[in-house]
């Protein structure tokens, strides 16, 4: 029987901006345990009067990064937890966490592929953990990433994703910008739809193992689109994170 999950006190050892509203936080953990790519940590804040707010944040770092995890967090303007991370928390501060959590929205090379990763906004975080795990393991599973952002400035892990596109190690990176596009933009310029999914699928084959993470309505559209295109529902795994901001 696995050990029960316990809350522990993590120490912030690094803060890195990823885009205008998104930062990555490196957390050193006294009771670090190896995670599976796609898992998350729960974070709990307690006010002086005892009021608690709890949220789940996906791990972006691969399991090969030991002793610490990196969580990438989007600042939600009226949120209870993310503004604290963005505006208050500094290197050296402590925060209460438990994890790693989740035994379903996970991928490791042994699960095979072809691998289709579909992300909206900060939904790219657990999928990046999968890509980093694939790369760290020297795995060659045919993989496609389809990533939807509002504008180029909102793209998280931009340089890393651009590098994927030119690395030629079996990962295809497709991006769409739904709100505005720079003049030289060569990617898609609309919300994810069935035609777009069909074009991405053509790069890896029709029966992928699909992971979709993002705002609930994007996940619904992408999951329904894939099933309509003939992908078996049992091979489509979803992680919805609620309304868009």
């Amino acid at each position, binding site marked *: 029987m*696995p050990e029960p999950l316990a809350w522990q006190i993590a120490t912030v050892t690094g803060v890195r901006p990823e885009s205008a509203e998104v930062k990555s936080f490196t957390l050193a953990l006294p009771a670090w345990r190896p995670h599976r790519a796609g898992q998350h940590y729960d974070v709990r804040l307690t006010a002086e009067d005892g009021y608690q707010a709890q949220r789940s944040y996906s791990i972006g770092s691969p399991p090969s990064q030991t002793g610490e995890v990196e969580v990438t967090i989007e600042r939600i303007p009226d949120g209870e937890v993310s503004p604290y991370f963005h505006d208050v928390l500094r290197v050296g501060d402590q925060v209460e966490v438990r994890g790693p959590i*989740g035994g379903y*929205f996970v991928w490791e090379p042994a699960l095979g592929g072809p691998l289709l990763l579909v992300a909206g906004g900060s939904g790219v975080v657990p999928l990046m953990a999968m890509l980093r795990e694939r790369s760290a393991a020297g795995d060659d599973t045919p993989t496609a990433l389809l990533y939807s952002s509002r504008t180029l400035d909102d793209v998280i892990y931009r340089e890393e994703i651009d590098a994927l596109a030119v690395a030629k190690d079996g990962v295809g990176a497709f991006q769409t910008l739904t709100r505005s596009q720079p003049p030289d933009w060569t990617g898609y310029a609309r919300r994810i739809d069935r035609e777009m999914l069909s074009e991405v699928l053509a790069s890896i084959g029709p029966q992928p193992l699909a992971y979709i993470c993002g705002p609930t309505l994007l996940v619904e559209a992408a999951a329904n689109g894939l099933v309509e295109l003939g992908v078996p529902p049992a091979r489509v795994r979803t992680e919805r994170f609620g309304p868009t901001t």
Partner: protein
Amino acid sequence: MDDPLMLDANAVAGDLAEMFGFDVSGSVHRCTNCGNQGAVATLLAYVHGPGTVLRCCICHEIVMRWVRTPTRIYLDARGAAYMEMGLS
């Protein structure tokens, strides 16, 4: 199925682990109402009310619901006809 607040049960896997003693998000459940069988993580989670409600992704009936106070959790799991979990 167009409720923007709806999440997957994966999001509450930590609370489930607190109740069951270990992570059950990848474990199998069967819906009492429609008989659909699948991973607990595929249930649809509604977390914005005073309690948490997990609904079947096929028939949308309630499979599990719970409320927590500072000292207790009250779980109603009558919508889960059956569960199957690994021991290692």
